[in-house]
């Protein structure tokens, strides 16, 4: 066998092995999607996925680094994997780091919304009224089975972490938390502060509530891809 022929064969073999390995690795580890939050000011999930260019500027801008780029590595800690079209999009896992709504940071607007070059995150002022009106990442939910205060002890940590105490999260008798969905914007600070594991108070993301189940081509593509992946 000539040297050139040998090299060519070796190269082809190596390339096909690598490709095969990559495919096997992909097929084996797809996990069903769980929950994560979108940054404040995000459009509806379908619009967000189509408008966002996955540049990561919001993540750079976040002073608390709660916004991370959704990759397989990041999702691993939460048994999550990015679904079709979600790879590279900005997400918040409130258990890891929650949104502090840029309080105590200079600037007029929420940093990430100011940084977004596409309008996938709408520009939002840091004022109380504007936050209440425009930010809706999700809504907190208390699991009475797990929560300390509902099970004979007193805790109340979540109420002290809440940026709108007494409004979004009321602490009642025996420090029992109750959520007022009219005021809760889903920043996740309560979930981050919860001393129980799994967390007794969790954010139900908005994009889960409003996710369109079909009708659009994007939805069709999503179901097709998730069926085969």
């Amino acid at each position, binding site marked *: 066998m000539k040297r050139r022929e040998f*090299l060519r064969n070796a190269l082809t073999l190596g390339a096909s092995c690598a490709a095969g390995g990559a495919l096997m690795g992909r097929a084996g580890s797809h996990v069903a999607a769980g929950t994560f939050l979108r940054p404040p000011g995000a459009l509806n999930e379908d619009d967000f*996925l*189509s408008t966002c260019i996955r*540049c990561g*500027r919001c993540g*750079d801008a976040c002073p608390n*680094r709660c916004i991370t780029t959704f990759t397989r590595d990041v999702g691993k800690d939460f048994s999550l994997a990015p679904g079709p079209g979600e790879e590279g999009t900005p997400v918040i896992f409130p258990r890891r780091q929650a949104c502090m709504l840029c309080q105590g940071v200079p600037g007029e607007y929420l940093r990430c919304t100011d*940084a977004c*070059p*596409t309008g996938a995150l709408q520009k939002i002022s840091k004022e109380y009224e504007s936050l209440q009106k425009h930010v809706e990442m999700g809504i907190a939910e208390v699991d009475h089975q797990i929560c300390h205060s509902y099970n004979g002890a007193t805790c109340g940590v979540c109420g002290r972490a809440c940026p709108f105490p007494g409004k979004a999260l009321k602490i009642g008798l025996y420090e029992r938390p109750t959520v007022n969905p009219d005021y809760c914007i889903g920043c996740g600070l309560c979930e981050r502060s919860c001393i129980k594991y799994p967390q007794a108070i969790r954010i139900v993301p908005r994009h889960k509530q409003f996710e369109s189940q079909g009708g659009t081509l994007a939805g069709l593509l999503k179901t097709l891809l998730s069926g085969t992946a």
Partner: protein
Amino acid sequence: MSALRKAWTALCPKPGWQWARRGVQAAAIALLFLLPVLARYNNYLASRELDGVMERWQDRSQGQILAATDQALRATGSEEQVFEGNPRRNREELQERLARYRGSVWSVEIAGVSMTDPLAVAESASASKQLRWVLFVGLLLPLGITLILGRVFCSWVCPMNTLLELTDKLRGVLKFLELPPHNLRFWRGNKFLLLGMGILAALLFSVPLLGYFYPPAIFGREIHNWVNVFFDRAEAGAPGISWLGGLSIASGFVLGVMVLEVFVSERLWCRYLCPGGALYCLLGKFRTVRVRRDVAKCTDCADCITVCGMGLNPMRDVTGIECDNCALCITYCEPRALSFRFDLFDPRPQGPGQGLPKVPAAPVPEPKAVEVPERAKAVAS
């Protein structure tokens, strides 16, 4: 020292345009690494204990990088207040300054100027079917530069192009070892086809797909990822440096393209496949700066064809929309027949070069008059 100079001349053989170009390329790559570091610094400054972090990581490269960043930023900032005999960080001012630097080559904000890749704008607009004014604020500068100077993003900024110019040197090494690599040629329209398919897919499925395999976007995401893994290691207390945690399918894709370029086809990605390059080609169709050839000086030596990364033929005035104004042909032109000119249209083919010195035709000896001997004359008469 002489080895260093040799390496430099191998990279950048002649002064002129190439110095400027290499400088811009190096700055682009440095910024790719610097911007995520600045974001990290901003994070520690805004919501963690920066001094404590730097003190804990004193002996680690992460801590040293943070300390260097800190010193540089404080030195360039406004005057600091003195608190208990020590200058205290101007936190507000630092954070406001840092807010104006973020992103990657895909979409970047430098000193408050937002720039977004035209491909990103095209994809976002076609996928969402909405034209938001924020998009066009970022598009203004790149679009203006491309309309005037042509496809200069590719040759002066794109990190993939920088990397592939280096892999081209590997091809040279292979040739030197007498293992000449293949150079398959494909149809150049492939990249326009890919661009069209990507935009069509974005319109139909409302998902921007081209960004997933457009190298500048990949570089931005991957390098951010590397820097994050790098600092996360220090936060987790793990020893050493590891970037392997940041290697993903996208990095594998870039490496695969590099391997193919070395062994299969010269500049495979830029010439035949890159959708972003295709968009820059189209936008730069009516550029005002073009490579021009002075026929009177050209000697038809074909050096310009050899060095052209895009595989064009400046020697016969064939540059077209694919020329990225990298000025390599101008630098390497021995008789200095090529130069940049302001012109809206490509030149007409001007035929072979006239620059070779005229070799005078060999003189034809005049027939000597045959001398006729006297006696023969006498005989004839």
